[in-house]
């Protein structure tokens, strides 16, 4: 376990593993999304009240999940950075932040679009919606802080502290629907029990799109992290070797012989 964590903490190992995982991830994600979208949009039955409008659920709920997941991940990485000084943790935290912000934005936009027909307004200042908006601001704040600090190490740690402080908003989002009487609905009961008010035909596609989104998230995460790793380790031997072999490969493939 520790061994494994230690390895994950090594950028080089992360880079190579990332390369190995990516093609699989692309495949699985594509499959999940295609199945989920076709099933969700084409085959699951219209809701007894909302008709077809409810299908935004296949976008909205995964986006909301991603928002929370991203922030949890950033918080974990921040803790890892501050406590164990794992460099890789910062790379991941940096890679996740914009993805999380985009997911939050997607959640807000899809929710607003959904609200127009359903509630009769695209925006209302209830606790769930407001705390979600604040979450977006927190994501942007973290990104802004990182871009403002020139020294990379300081930026990493400062963002980590801010992330941990910002963590207080997550339970507020989560429980806002219970603590306050919001216009936004409470959590839907998505269990396989027969008595469940939500039949599987409706929410199983949501699982597909949900996992598809998670796949997309990890793809983004890996690509962005790899980018960052190359940038940070550009002086190290393994990156130089890697780039050389890549160049060589590209050269032989294209049949051009340049000596770069």
């Amino acid at each position, binding site marked *: 376990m520790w061994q494994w964590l230690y390895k994950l903490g090594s950028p080089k190992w992360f880079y190579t593993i990332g390369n190995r995982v990516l093609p699989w991830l692309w495949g699985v994600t594509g499959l999940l999304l295609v199945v989920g979208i076709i099933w969700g949009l084409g085959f699951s039955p219209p809701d*007894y009240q909302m008709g077809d409008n409810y299908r935004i*659920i296949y976008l909205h709920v995964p986006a909301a999940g991603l928002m929370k997941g991203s922030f949890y991940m950033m918080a974990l990485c921040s803790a890892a950075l501050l406590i164990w000084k794992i460099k890789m943790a910062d790379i991941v935290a940096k890679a996740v932040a914009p993805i999380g912000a985009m997911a939050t934005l997607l959640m807000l936009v899809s929710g607003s679009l959904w609200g127009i*027909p*359903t509630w*009769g307004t695209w925006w209302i200042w209830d606790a769930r919606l407001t705390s979600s908006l604040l979450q977006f601001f927190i994501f942007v704040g973290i990104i802004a802080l990182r871009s403002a600090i020139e020294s990379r190490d300081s930026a990493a740690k400062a963002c980590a502290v801010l992330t941990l402080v910002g963590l207080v908003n997550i339970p507020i989002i989560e429980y806002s629907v219970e603590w306050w009487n919001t216009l936004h609905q409470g*959590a839907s009961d998505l269990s396989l029990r027969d008595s469940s008010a939500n039949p599987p035909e409706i929410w199983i596609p949501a699982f597909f799109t949900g996992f598809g989104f998670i796949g997309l998230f990890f793809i983004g995460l890996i690509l962005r992290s790899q980018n960052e790793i190359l940038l940070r380790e550009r002086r190290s031997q393994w990156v130089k070797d890697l780039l050389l072999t890549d160049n060589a490969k590209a050269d032989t493939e294209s049949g051009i012989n340049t000596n770069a």
Partner: protein
Amino acid sequence: MLAHRQQKLAIVLFIIFGSALAIGLVLFALKEGINVFYTPTEISAGEVGQGQSFRVGGMVKMGSLVKEGLEGAEVNFLATDFCNDVLVSYTGPLPDLFREGQGVVADGSLDNAGTFKATQILAKHDENYMSAEVKASLDAAESASIEVCHQ
């Protein structure tokens, strides 16, 4: 040496004290109740005054919906929390989901007669999604059960 230990202890004690105080205060606050949203029961208990603008939440009582004027431009209905009702009157566009038996949230204020003059009506969607057939069968199963007034 001891002095430094004591300093650390002081910090830890201070933090524990602060957190404990915070928890106690939150519990007190929850006991006091914090309202952002009034139920018909609270309104009939006279918790809000006339003319003050606030938000009501409840269900549109079955069979209480009356549409008046051209194309139902003005609506009157009873909002209920299954214990008490409040009469709501509203003029303006309604959301698609607004119908009897559906959750509703209304902004507005009470007039002299105790009618809630709504300035905005929002339909609250519940957490259930199902196809029409499933709904029908569920309704059949549920029609026997009695709604309980919990307060």
